[in-house]
């Protein structure tokens, strides 16, 4: 590994690290202004995330879907696309996997589980395909379309589990008939559940292995295959991509489908591994957090894993922090938002810490490329 490669990696790590550090610092100042004790809060956060085997398991559990939604957003960035729709794709993935999971009783697990997972992925792919196709053939911007589709997905998901009304409104097709007035699906059959790696009380399921595997596969596709080369070229310079004979339209659609599929897989894994059912209170929030994860991870799949781990830890420690220090767990949302602000605007970090941009920096993450055309 050459010196310049090392310098480049160092730079890639430096900005996110400082962004997190600055966000924590600023979060501490906010707590201090409101009369809370930031040190106690962060001690609680640490205990909640890493203080015990139980804490570690929570961190890993929270990290799992974030890896996949982070990958979803990161992959789209590579093609110059801004996927704000991971949230909707996640929900559709959830609902589709439940639809398979609560049906087909008696199927053996080695058929039922993959089928349910695939259904979730397929739902996400479809949800990514729509903005891709609309962008290519009508010029509709993917940011607008994916935001709209988030609403569609969330309303559609709620409808599928709707319990029906007192005036005789029809319940949704996936509604659990035994639940009375509660809107939710039945639990998926055992044969469609992701098994535990570490069972109760730690509840770590095989989804984490799938997510890590997907990160490796995505890294390989992006950096080691011709498809990845095409995708990165489209993202870096779509005119040069056309000149080079790359089918820019197809790459755009395909990338959105892959991005959708990854977020859909996150929904399926969260459902089949952990919740075992779908209910409207399961939101696609991890889809939005995927944006933070992707940017914090510098749109690199390996970086995404690290970023997801960090955000997972923040999520995991929040409850303990509130319990130990009395600081509202909501401060974690503030810190996450600050992290996003700092990584999305690296100039701020560079100015504060007086970091010079290396002259031979490769493939800077430019969020705005998605807006440029």
């Amino acid at each position: 590994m050459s010196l310049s490669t090392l310098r480049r990696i160092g730079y890639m790590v430096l900005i996110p690290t400082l962004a997190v550090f600055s966000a924590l610092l600023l979060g501490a100042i906010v707590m201090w202004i409101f009369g809370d004790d930031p040190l106690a809060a962060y001690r609680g956060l640490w205990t909640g995330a890493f203080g015990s085997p139980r804490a570690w398991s929570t961190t890993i559990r929270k990290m799992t879907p974030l890896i996949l939604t982070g990958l979803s957003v990161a992959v789209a960035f590579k093609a110059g696309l801004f996927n704000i729709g991971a949230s909707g794709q996640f929900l559709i993935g959830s609902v589709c996997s439940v639809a398979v999971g609560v049906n087909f009783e008696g199927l053996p697990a080695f058929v039922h589980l993959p089928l349910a997972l695939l259904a979730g992925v397929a739902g996400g792919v479809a949800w990514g395909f729509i903005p891709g196709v609309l962008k290519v053939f009508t010029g509709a911007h993917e940011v607008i379309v994916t935001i709209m589709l988030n609403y569609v997905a969330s309303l559609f998901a709620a409808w599928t589990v709707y319990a029906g009304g007192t005036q005789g409104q029809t319940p949704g097709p996936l509604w659990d008939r035994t639940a009375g007035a509660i809107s939710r699906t039945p639990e998926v059959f055992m044969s469609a559940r992701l098994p535990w790696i570490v069972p109760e009380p730690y509840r770590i399921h095989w989804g984490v292995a799938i997510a890590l595997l997907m990160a490796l596969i995505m890294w390989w596709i992006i950096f080691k295959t011709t498809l990845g080369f095409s995708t990165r070229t489209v993202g870096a310079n779509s005119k040069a991509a056309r000149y080079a004979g790359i089918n820019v339209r197809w790459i755009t659609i395909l990338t959105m489908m892959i991005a959708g599929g990854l977020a859909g897989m996150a929904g399926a894994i969260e459902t089949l591994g952990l919740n075992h059912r779908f209910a409207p209170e399961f939101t696609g929030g991890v889809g939005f957090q995927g944006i933070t994860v992707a940017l914090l991870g510098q749109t690199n799949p390996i970086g995404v894993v690290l970023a997801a781990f960090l955000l997972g830890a923040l999520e995991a420690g929040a409850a303990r922090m509130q319990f130990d220090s009395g600081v509202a767990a909501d401060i974690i949302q503030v810190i996450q938002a600050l992290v996003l602000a700092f990584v999305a605007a690296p100039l701020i970090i560079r100015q504060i810490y007086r970091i010079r941009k290396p002259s031979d920096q490769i493939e800077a993450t430019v969020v705005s490329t998605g807006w440029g055309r």
Partner: protein
Amino acid sequence: MSTSPTPPVLEARHITKVFPGVIANEDVNLVLHKGEILALLGENGAGKSTLMNIIFGLYHPTHGEILVNGKPVAMKSPRDAIALGIGMVHQHFQLVPVMTVTDNIMLGDESVKNGLLDRRAVAERIRALSQKYGLEVDPDAIVEDLPVGVRQRVEILKALYRNAKILILDEPTAVLTPQEIEGLFEVMETLRRQGESIIFITHKLKEVLRIADRIMVLRNGRVVGEADPKTATQQQLASMMVGREVILTVDKGPAHPGETVLEVEGLCATSDLGEPALRNVSFQVRAGEILGVAGVQGNGQTELVEVITGLRRADAGHVRIKGVDMTNASPRRITHEGRSSHVPEDRHAYGMVDSYTVADNLVLNQYYLPPFAKGVTIQEVAIAAHARELVKKFDVRTPSIYTPGGSLSGGNQQKMVVAREFSRPIQLLIAAQPTRGIDVGSIEFIHNQIIAKRDEGVAVLLVSAELDEIMALSDRIAVMYKGEIIDVVDRADATREGLGLLMAGVKREPVR
């Protein structure tokens, strides 16, 4: 002038600027007198821009000092330089396209009356300045509606508006048509008469001899000499710039045209603005000949190349390569099946990916083919080997094959594109503005490569706005005017005057 007791308006003493790993300027001395045009000549990467950026306060010299009117000055930013009466017109204009000339000129130095912008007063001053210096501009025009030459005048006015007494013009002719260049020179002469001092940065020898009072040549960050335009020749200047003898005229034997390779018939296409850009264009290029397409820029040459290479749709007509219909075929099919190469006119937009390494840029349109790909996987070892070979063969000066292409100098970027396009077995070469904005040494190299391709039996379509280049390389010359091929002449029968008339749309009388 040197005997004048008044100190020079600008003096740079022993300027050295060191960047990590590079000495950009080494012990450079520069003197500029009042009412003088000093030409700063040098190849890309010779240190001209660094020196100017130091004088304009963008960089701080590692050693040395700057004196304005005999007094040492310490500039922290361009703001200080402007306050000292130094103005700079950058090669890439610093204008806001959607704003008016007035707004652009006062931007950053706005006149305010009662808390509101006082556009009228500004416009008045602009008119006064326009008149004084012969810089005709409508203050109310929107910048994006103006031709490039006029935009440049706006840039000059912007500097004069800030009371600049010293003007730095960075490669001002690179973007201009021959007529606009003449207009600029007239403006420069007026400025000189009015007592302005000008530093004129360029690498075009003919222009230097035409306009400069004194010439200073930079090479590798050092001053290699001064020359007097009255006595110097282009040949001498070129040798000083490059550091060795340069052959300015291209040495080429007669063409031996073979069968027709590229055939264009009745081609029509539309520009980005929705206007007809090509009207019924027909021509043929045969193996082993160079067809030059001349014309003032914006007469359809860009669209012609784009249609032939598959980047723009043809509305009517046909493109055939070796008899195979390639009209509206995909760029990949035209490159691959048509065995063609394309050096695009805008290398940053089309020819390369700035953030990609030199190695990746060198396989930009072959990365999916063996040996660079095996199945779906990229073969990094083969790509690196290919890059090392081409970098050496085409003399691309880069610290490493893993350096991002965007950080190379313009000439080396173009060599990189040429290396990629010329190293494949091809039957058709389409070269659009192959030497735009690059230095003499690289131009010579690329010209020789084009001739070599011709002699190998490749059909070459050369599009260039430089009439000299067309004259030097072509075997036949087609002139485009308003989207039409107005005439095709044999190189032997072509004269500058005749081509100039055709470029202006004047068709010659049929020979009796």
